[in-house]
């Protein structure tokens, strides 16, 4: 058998949230090195934030990432509130948690249906996918719209939110509007069930490796 030597270099993996290069070195048919390189340019947010007024920090730190801007905003708020020893009201905590969940929904729908799903259906990207599977695309767009609209309502904006401030919210959503969203959330259950049945059908290649899972345990039981 002839020896297999090859190098695989993929610059800027596409259809992932974030930036990464993939480097694989194969010598004599054995993978010698497989590297995942994060090539995002350093932006030195830690230094940028130093010396700024505390109520300006969350707005700046949300710019770390457009996709998870709500998390960056809320964690900065929490850090500042912890510094002051301030506990937000139950209403604020619940609204923040709702906002956070909407970000999770936004991001998951984006990742599953717009970035990953086309691969499982043998399509190149979600644009041809939207032509071949309009029902799935419409369902994904409906769910994404719900998450985005509710994030708009609670956070003021779907990315880089404007209403969460240190101490609470600069504007709270109207009860009437939230009532409408309650109805929309309940009726999205059908779409979510459809999505999960669809996801079950995806054939994911067998891959497991020795992994050490690490997680931090929150000191305060009520998060956010």
């Amino acid at each position, binding site marked *: 058998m002839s020896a297999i030597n090859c190098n695989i270099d993929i610059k*800027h993996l*596409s*259809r*992932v*949230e974030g930036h990464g290069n993939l480097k694989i070195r194969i010598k004599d048919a054995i993978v010698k090195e497989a590297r995942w390189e994060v090539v995002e*340019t*350093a*932006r*030195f947010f830690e*230094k*940028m934030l*130093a*010396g*700024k*007024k505390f109520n*300006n920090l969350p*707005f*700046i730190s949300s*710019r*770390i*990432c*457009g*996709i998870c*801007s709500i998390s960056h905003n809320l964690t900065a708020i929490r850090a500042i509130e912890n510094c002051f020893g301030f506990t937000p009201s139950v209403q604020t905590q619940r609204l923040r948690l709702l906002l956070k969940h909407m970000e999770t929904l936004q991001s998951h729908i*984006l990742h599953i249906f*717009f*970035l990953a799903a086309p691969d499982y259906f043998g399509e*190149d*990207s*979600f*644009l041809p996918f*939207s032509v071949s599977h309009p029902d799935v*695309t419409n369902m994904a*767009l*409906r769910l*994404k*719209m719900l998450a*985005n609209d509710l994030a708009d309502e609670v956070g*003021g*904006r*779907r*990315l*880089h939110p*404007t*209403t969460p*401030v240190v101490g609470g919210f*600069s*504007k709270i959503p109207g009860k009437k509007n939230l009532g409408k969203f309650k109805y929309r959330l309940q009726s999205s259950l059908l779409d979510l069930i459809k999505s999960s049945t669809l996801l079950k059908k995806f054939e994911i290649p067998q891959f497991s490796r020795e992994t050490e899972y690490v997680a931090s345990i929150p000191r305060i039981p009520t998060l956010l």
Partner: protein
Amino acid sequence: MIRNKPFVLNKCVRPKVAFFKLTSCEGCQLQVFNRESGVLKFLNQMEIVDFREAITGTSSCYDVAFIEGSVNNEEQKMKLIEIRHRADTVVALGSCACFGGINQLVASCEKGISEADKGKISPSPKTPKALDEIIQVDVHIYGCPVKKKELESIFPRILSGKPVIHNKYPVCRECKQNHNICLLDLGEPCLGSVTRGGCDAWCTGSGMGCWGCRGPIPKVTQRQLERLSQRKGIDFDSLAERMSCFGGFSNLLCQQTEDLYKSCQL
């Protein structure tokens, strides 16, 4: 100045469009996918040939290039020059591309970064640059993040080669139209009176003072703002801090230092 050529607008020939990201948060690219009700219609106006976040393939042949993010290193600079050579129209998407955005904040605190970090993390962490400091940019789309509605209205103009004219009125006007209470009266620092309108008072509508992410309106001066803040009893420092954040007001702030310098000399 617009130097783009009009494209043939029929169903068979769609312009080839590429999206690129330099140093940024990807938020403006994400906005391209927002406003779900019309997203497919919007995206089908163009043939996307390069969009790392959304499609697999890459291409070196495109008519319009949307570029998000600021130029932070030499590699990005070379890439940008290459894009300029290939594309007929270059569009700066968002505040980072238009003014350096939030990234240019690092310039004011570069002293805090150790030499070891500079070498290790990034090849050359110089002051992040806006696109037009390096190449000629044909169209600017302002905002952090960009407003999808504005993007949708500008795009047909890019295709037909018409000039893109930005609003000359401030955010304040839109804020008043939306019947919001003036935030300056409530003690919240706000740059709405000097910032280019077009965002439909996005932040101010939800009680957050304007940060000037869309840059200044023409003919605005530092002194006007100082007078306004004095009259409304707002600390000018907090306005200046917000002005420095997105880079759009950098010229205005330079003017301030010059003024200070002059007053010291006198």
